[in-house]
């Protein structure tokens, strides 16, 4: 049951990310692209955040193939909604990025901070091929740097907020059991 719930959550992330990206473009005039908040929203690399969210939430419960298929589905939907006349760019990029995540974080119990450490790398790998394929705009280094920093900042903020309850209500670690104290643990003091 838990497996299916996590699978559903992962698929929901993969589905809603392209929807949010296209909706952002639709409400662009209302958001005001020139304001600080408007620019901040556009600088966020949403696919990278979505991949990280998938890894952070579902790595312990799902098989890597599930995550990889969800990442491929995310890329396929992004390709389908894009204005480009060719498929595959986002699909391949997202699949490879997810593969990289799973390779760099082989443990089933992935800690969110591990994922945060590789966010800049993921944002760079996601932004650079797009910029090269679609033609490098003027000042692309600053654009890319801003995107990486914004995504990393937002990821750190999200992880910190998610970890806060564990910081405030930290449980005591269980007493370790060694061969030396096995008798003392079994017999009363």
């Amino acid at each position, binding site marked *: 049951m838990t497996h299916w719930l996590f699978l559903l959550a992962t698929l929901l992330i993969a589905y809603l990310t392209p929807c949010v990206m296209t*909706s952002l473009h639709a409400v662009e005039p209302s958001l005001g692209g020139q304001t600080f908040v408007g620019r901040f929203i556009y600088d966020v690399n949403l696919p990278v955040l979505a991949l990280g969210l998938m890894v952070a939430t579902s790595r312990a419960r799902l098989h*890597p193939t599930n995550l990889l298929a969800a990442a491929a589905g995310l890329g396929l*939907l992004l390709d389908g909604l894009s204005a480009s006349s060719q498929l595959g760019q986002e699909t*391949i990029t997202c699949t490879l990025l997810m593969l990289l995540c799973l390779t760099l974080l082989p443990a089933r119990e992935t800690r969110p901070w591990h994922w945060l450490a590789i966010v800049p790398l993921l944002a760079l790998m996601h932004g650079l091929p797009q910029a090269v394929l679609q033609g490098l705009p003027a000042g692309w280094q600053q654009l890319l740097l801003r995107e990486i920093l914004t995504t990393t900042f937002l990821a750190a903020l999200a992880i910190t907020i998610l970890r806060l309850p564990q910081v405030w209500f930290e449980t005591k670690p269980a007493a370790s059991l060694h061969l030396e104290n096995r008798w003392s643990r079994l017999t009363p003091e």
Partner: protein
Amino acid sequence: MSAPSPSTLGPVVILIAATLLPALPTGLVNSWKSVARDIAAPGQRITQQAFQTAIQTAASLGNTTSFVNSTSMPSTASFDGIPLANNDSDVATLRQQLSDEQEARRRLTAAWIGKTPALEIPAAPNEGIVLASHQSEFPWDQSPSRLEPQSSERLVIPELVSAALMGGEHAARWKRGHFLSKGGLHGIEESAWVIKSPQPLVDLGADHGVSPADLVLAGSAIVGKIERVGQWTSTFLPLTHPSFRCRATIVRPEAAGNATRQPMILAQAILAGQGDGTCQLEKIPDTVGLRTGDEVYSADTDGALAHPLFLGTITSATLPTENRHWVAVVTPVFTTPGSTGDDTTDNLQLDLPPRLAVLRLRMNPARATVPSGTGNPPLGPTP
């Protein structure tokens, strides 16, 4: 040699499939794009509503703050530089300004589509003005050909004639024959077709050269087309009448999420009145990305008009699952709520301005004269 485990095989299959995607044929890619739009539509609707709610909430919070602050300023309250209305007259003035701005924007869009100057309505009543005497716009000076074409005048030119809407009691008295009660004895009568018609009346008839199918305009917007022509008055079919049909061009305005910041022509279709105050666009394939707020202009096929005229705004666009064509509802600027097709709407309720204009076509006077000696009688312009 052992067989690959499922955990290895899955990623390999997914990667190979993803790598092969760019090699797919264009038809398959377009099919997937259409399917992807359908799949994402519900999610987009939900997220857009969420964004709009968030924006409206933020705006209302800002509004409240502004009003609270404005209590200390008794007369000149303002919100982000926009003066707030104090009474009904201010509201009416602002509404008029908004209407003028919308009209000006529609004319600009129409001028952009036609790449020609905007339409001018004559100020004096019943005086015709020439809208466009088309010169050849082909860039001949860039043509490598040595043949220089001589400029020619168009044979038929459009003219705008100012007209007044005869509504309510005025039209009723005209139809009862009050104005012509004495003339009837001497053979001065209005056409029975006009008298008996339940459609709205304008005060122009054959005396001003009006013909059936001439367009009736309010500003740069089409409100109907002439149906029956009498001696002094004519009836017209409103835009929303079930019998009204015309060719239309769908245009995305420059501010509706349009990345190019310029009006964009999306498709051509048939506009048909529905009789309920709205019109419907027909035969728009699902490959066109329609959205509410897109504007509809007339599509001139014979080149008589210099630029298109405004028809209405798309207020609803849905793509039924069993149909490959859009169901798009267009709401005109001026609605005629009672215009049903049963011809029993004698007390037709109109939301039209009192001053209208009729777009009539007439022969170009410059072409109407025949060189002497040909033996043919000279052709005069229509009255």
